């Protein structure tokens, strides 16, 4: 249903970036590619400002944690080109001990709260973000709850006995 196809997007990207992005694949028709933290700003800027591709809508930014991998924390961007009706997913994996990545707020204002939420849950530092503080959790929380090692239940609760809840 799109005016340009995934193939054209892949061609434009590989023409411009070559081996700085991974080989793209398309799970369920959604073009997915991976890049590294040094090139993510250029890739996003190119996708947004290119006259043909016009990925002007930032759908979402989120994070993911794979503890067994070397680059364990990932940031995942979903972009959408409204005029061409094409979506793209970009993944960036970061070192778990120092997850820093440049911010996308210079390109889209809407990235502001999305990045705060990702910081709140995973501890990813977005360099250049105007106000990177916690947004959903309590302000004095020291851990990052969506990482895999953090438990779901509050261990200090008194009225529910873990034995009866199968844990």
């Amino acid at each position, binding site marked *: *249903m799109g005016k340009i196809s995934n193939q054209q997007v892949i061609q434009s990207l590989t023409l411009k970036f070559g081996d700085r992005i991974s080989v793209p694949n398309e*799970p*369920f028709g*959604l073009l*997915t590619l991976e890049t590294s933290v040094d090139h993510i700003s250029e890739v996003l800027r190119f996708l947004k400002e290119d006259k043909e591709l016009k990925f*002007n*809508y*930032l*759908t*979402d930014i*989120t994070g*993911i944690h794979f503890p067994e991998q070397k680059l364990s924390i990932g940031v*995942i961007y*979903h972009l959408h080109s*409204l005029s061409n*009706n094409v*979506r793209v*997913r970009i993944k960036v994996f970061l070192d778990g001990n120092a997850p820093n990545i440049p911010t996308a707020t210079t390109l*889209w*204002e*809407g990235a*502001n*709260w*999305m990045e705060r*939420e990702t910081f709140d*849950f995973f501890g990813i530092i977005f360099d250049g973000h105007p106000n990177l503080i*916690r*947004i*959903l*959790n*309590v*302000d004095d929380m020291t851990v990052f*709850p*969506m990482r895999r090692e*953090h438990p*779901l239940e509050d261990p200090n609760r008194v009225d529910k006995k873990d034995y009866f809840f199968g844990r």
Partner: protein
Amino acid sequence: MTNHPIFTDNDPQKETITLNLGPTHPATHGVFQNVLEMDGERIVSGVSTIGYIHRAFEKIAEHRPFYQITPLTDRMNYCSSPINNMGWHMTVEKLLGIETPKRVDYLRVIVMELARISDHLICNGILGVDTGAFTGFLYLMEEREHIYEIYEEICGARLTTNIGRIGGFERDFNDIAFAKIKNFLVKFPPILKEFEVLFNRNRIFIERTSGVAPVDPETALNYSWSGPILRATGVDYDVRVNEPYSSYQDFDFDIPVGTSGDVYDRYIVRNEEMWQSLRIIEQALQKIEKEPKGVFHANVPEFYLPPKEEVYNNMEALIYHFKIVMGEIDTPKTEVYHAVEGGNGELGFYLVNDGGRSPYRLHFRRPSFINYQMYAPMSAGMLLSDAIINMSSLNVIAGELDA
């Protein structure tokens, strides 16, 4: 909380007042806080604080099997919970490659459009209450009771419906449900018209809402707005048309689009969307007549629980039942993103699956959360009462804001 602006403001020479539009609001908008610097009646700047109802949906979803995540999705946008349920089921069906029969699609469309009407009724009613007109809200709440009765007939619950299963519905719509839907299509339009007569050309309402908080399309797209408020600015982005799901391409409906993006345009867009939803429901009822009767779920025994009589008598049904409940079925180890048009905008589900019983990572792209981040910058320079109307026209549902 102690480094919150409301506590660090202690300069006695300051010319502005700090007003805490705190988490406990009058008039039911939900729990979010705005600390505003006011110069008299005009807002100079504001800081939004959310998270007062953060229930960690995404973390819970990593510990529950797929069919147990449906009640969680109910409680995100609780004014139109069937849309969330259907969106989640469609995400899982996309992952597993299940194709639902047409009749199931049409039944889903009926339920989703009823939910959309229900959501817009609350938003427009509350907008009326915030401008001071309480009567319209009472009339619309009565109509919502009729929608609740239809939900009860289909699934048993009023508000947090948990409608449907992966692959379809848990039971067919019975004759009483169809009769109630047809009755609703007859009785509701006059009430909506009466509400329009009260509000659409009402001079006080127009003066309160027209010209308040106009937004131009580039700013709205920059802030990733979606849904009726984006359409009020002039961008005709609707997920039902761009990427049709659940056979929406078979239906004939228009998308209302506004011009200036102010509060009046948002109200009119929601109103018109309700009329379009009624149109869609009528078409769906006619289309269902043509489909074979009695089909209410896809033929996927690996993911759809067999009926209890078969489980007790039939060996295969017993095995499938066991495998589904214990989560022993293999699922593809991949990721999927699916978006539906919720009451507030593009509701997206990003599911990363590792083949186990529960998802590895499930992220909800919540429209209220993303729409609301523009509120604090937008309210700079406005009068306080205009800012309140602006907030209620954004239709921020607290459950979806914090998830």
